[in-house]
Every structure is written in C-alpha cells, then in structure tokens.
C-alpha cells in the first residue's frame, strides 16, 4: 500500500524510509526519453531583443518600482473604463518593446498574448491595433511564460523570425470579475493577494544580441483539492513544484545550478509552501529562489501575501530580472510562472482550483 503512494510523481508527502526505494525506481538523472520529457530544448535559442514593463502607481512605490520602464500615474490612464486602461497599458508595453528593439509592427511575424479578462479581450483589442497575426493564449498568471515558451519553440523551429509576447493585468478589472465591486467594504483574509496593475512585453528574435531562451518546460494541470479563492498561493504551489521537478528530472540539474529560480505570483505564503513541498521531494530551494509576487509590494503597502495576476511576473521579469541578466549579475535563470485556471462560476459550483505552471530557462 505504501509503495503505491509513490505512483503519482507529484506526490508531495514521502516517508523517509520509502524515499530510498523511490530513488531506486526513479534514478535522479534518467536518460531523456522522447515524448516523455516535459521540457523542450531549443536548437536555435531565440534572443530577447526588446522588452518593456509598464506598472501602476502603487507598484511603482514597491521594492522593484525603480526598475520598471514606465509608471503610470493614473490607474485609469485617463480612459473611461478600467478595461480600456488595461489594454492601453498592454499597448504601451508592446510599443515600448518595439521601440527598444528599433523594429516596427510590420517586422513582427506573430503576436502572442493573453490576460485575465473573460475571453482575453485586452489582448485581442491590442492585437486589433497591431494588425499582425495573433495567437491568444490563456493560462492565467503564467500567461507570459506560456507565450514565451510557445514563441521560442516557433522561432527555434524556424517558422518565425520575430515574435512579440505580452500580457497585462489590472487590479480593478480583475477585482470586478473575480471578487466584489471596488467600493464594496469587505475584509480580505490575511492570506489573500493583491492583483498587480502592470503589463509586460517581450520581443523574441531568431538573431541579435541578448538573453537567450534555451529551454521551456510545459506544465501539467495539478489540483491538490484546494477551493479557497483567496488562498491562491496554496493552490498554485503544487503546480510550481510539479513543473520544477519535471525540469530537474528532464535536465538532470538541481536548484543550485541556477543563479535564480523565480516563480510568478505565489506570494509569501505560496513560496513558503513551495519550499516545503520541494524539501519533501529532496530539493532545497535556497537563497536563489524568489517569487515575483512577494517582491512587487512592500510590507507597508498592506497587500497581504503580495501580488498576483499575469502582469505581476510579466513586469518584474521584463524589468528587474532581465536587467540583471543583461548586466551579468545572473547568467542562468529559471522562470516558472504559475496560474490558477478556475473561473468565478466553477468555484461556486463546488469545483476545486486546477493550477498550471509553465517555465522557461533564460540564459545570458
């Protein structure tokens, strides 16, 4: 009976005496079998030639605020609705990324984007302005890592030259869609998170100088049976664990071989849980593990466990992380964003929260 406990590779609760048995069954560095690996290695790694991050005023006051390229003073961006502001922000990020790489919209082959709104409207409206082929993707807060993974695969295969990946989220629009009206006086539990108002865009190219994307790990949907809409960190941590384990297994590496392992928006609680889960799997995530969600807000900003939303990791990666990669502080970074794939209906129908985590390896 106990041995069967190990059947699921994502089982997080291993008894120590069974660990040895498990290690025999699953050697730590298995030979890569085609079709079994969750990780794809790019023969022609695409380079990041342009990027831009746009953040709201509150995020601008956070610890990584000074790294953002643009901080908007008005959360509504002088528009009529918050939805319009979100898509303005996304467009600003895309245009900024094109400017920084000195390319025009016509030079870009494909635009991959997604956001949190129903039917990913912000991205589609931004694509309307660009008039280039568009691929809408949705995996909640891990949208940027998913689009980077898809884009890199397409470039590496030689189908495309330049691909723009972008995503945005907005506190006010997410709040209205997933929770309550803005002015409704409700208390949040201390394990809640705060949706980040930010957008990020990354321009990938087959040639040029810059940070390379060398491999991508596509995650599985993982559901550990949590159903608390406020406790996203606890829901998503198992997904991050699953994908990180897949990466370590597929590449035969351990956490120490990366200068930095970053997750998207687990928050303080979620990243603590991830550390625990990984420790139980025999991997110690040390000083080189950080979480964008717990990075983006200051303790004094009263954002509970930190930021969430797809703009969270998109803006931090496109500013702080890639800055540090470019100036040589880091040379190999694993970026694993996590997303919770529920809808507000599914939770009222008593469903639990399925989560996913896609990752890419960024190398200098």
């Amino acid at each position: 009976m106990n041995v069967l406990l190990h059947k699921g590779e994502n089982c997080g609760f291993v008894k120590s005496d069974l660990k040895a048995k498990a290690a025999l069954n699953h050697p730590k560095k298995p030979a890569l079998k085609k079709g079994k690996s969750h990780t794809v290695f790019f023969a022609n790694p695409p380079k990041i030639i342009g990027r831009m991050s746009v953040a709201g005023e509150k995020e601008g006051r956070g610890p990584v605020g000074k790294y953002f390229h643009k901080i908007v003073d008005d959360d509504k961006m002088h528009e009529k609705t918050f939805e319009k502001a979100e898509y303005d922000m996304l467009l600003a990020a895309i245009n900024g990324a094109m400017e920084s790489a000195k390319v025009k919209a016509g030079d870009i082959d494909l635009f991959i984007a997604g956001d949190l709104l129903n039917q990913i409207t912000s991205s589609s409206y931004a694509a309307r302005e660009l008039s280039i082929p568009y691929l809408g993707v949705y995996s909640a807060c891990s949208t940027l890592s998913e689009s980077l993974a898809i884009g890199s695969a397409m470039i590496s295969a030689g189908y495309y030259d330049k691909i723009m990946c972008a995503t945005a989220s907005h506190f006010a629009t997410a709040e209205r869609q997933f929770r309550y009206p803005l002015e409704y006086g409700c208390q949040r539990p201390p394990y809640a998170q705060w949706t980040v108002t930010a957008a990020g865009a990354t321009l990938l190219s087959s040639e040029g100088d810059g940070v390379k994307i060398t491999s991508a790990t596509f995650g599985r949907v993982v559901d550990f049976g949590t159903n608390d809409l406020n406790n996203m960190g606890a829901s998503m941590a198992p997904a991050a664990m699953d994908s990180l384990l897949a990466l370590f297994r597929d590449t035969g590496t351990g956490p120490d071989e990366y200068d930095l392992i970053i997750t998207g928006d687990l928050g303080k609680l979620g990243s603590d849980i991830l550390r625990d889960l990984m420790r139980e799997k025999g991997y110690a995530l040390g000083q080189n593990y950080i979480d964008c969600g717990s990075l983006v807000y200051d303790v004094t900003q009263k954002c509970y466990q930190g930021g969430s939303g797809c703009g969270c990791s998109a803006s931090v990666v496109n500013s702080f992380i890639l800055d540090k990669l470019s100036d040589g502080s880091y040379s190999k970074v694993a970026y694993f964003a996590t997303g919770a794939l529920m809808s507000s209906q599914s939770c009222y129908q008593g469903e639990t929260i399925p989560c996913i985590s896609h990752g890419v390896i960024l190398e200098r």
Partner: protein
Amino acid sequence: MMWWEYLLNYLIVFAAGGLICTIAQILIIKTKLTPARILVLFLIGGIVLQAVGVFDFLYKYLGAGISVPIIGFGASLAKGAIYLARTVGFVGAFAGGLVRTAYGVGVAVVASYLVTLFFAPKSK
C-alpha cells in the same frame, strides 16, 4: 427621562449592536461562511424572532442596537407580512414585507442610482 437614563440607553444600544456584529465576525473567522451567507442567516434570524414575537420585546430594551443590524430589516419584513396577512388575508402575506420595508429599499435604489451619476469607483 433623566440624563443618566439616556446615557445608559445609549450604552446598551452601543453594546448590543457591537455584540451582534461581533457574533457575525466570529462566524467569519471560525467558519468559511461568506458575508452574503451570514447576511442571509441573520436576516432569517430576524424574521424568526419577529414571527415568534420576541423581537418587539428585545427592541424595547435594545433599540437601534437590534434594529440597525440586518436582523431589524428581517423583523420589519416579517412584521409587515404578518400584519397584512392578518388584515387583508392570504394575498397580504406576499405584499406585506415589501410594503413595510419599501421606504428603506426605495431610498437605497434611488440613492444608488443617483450616486452612480456623480461618482466613479476608484482603484485602490
């Protein structure tokens, strides 16, 4: 009434109102009930209190302490429904609750409509 009677009265109102809200807060912390469910729970509680005839007795002593929380709204609904049911008959039971609470609901709808015209929600 003497001044100290007023003082005592207000103290009782404050304590009663606070206590009722504290009970609801305990429910929030201890159980996973959402605010909407707790509101409905207390509302039905008020209806029951009125229907069994306890509410008027409580109101005499606690005043606004029990009528301002949603319990008072429930009691008001029940009082109206019972009153009309017994004076008008069968059909009165359906109208009574709304008739009695129409003042509050009416002003809430109109004021919400008006406030929408003048203010917009702010992102925090």
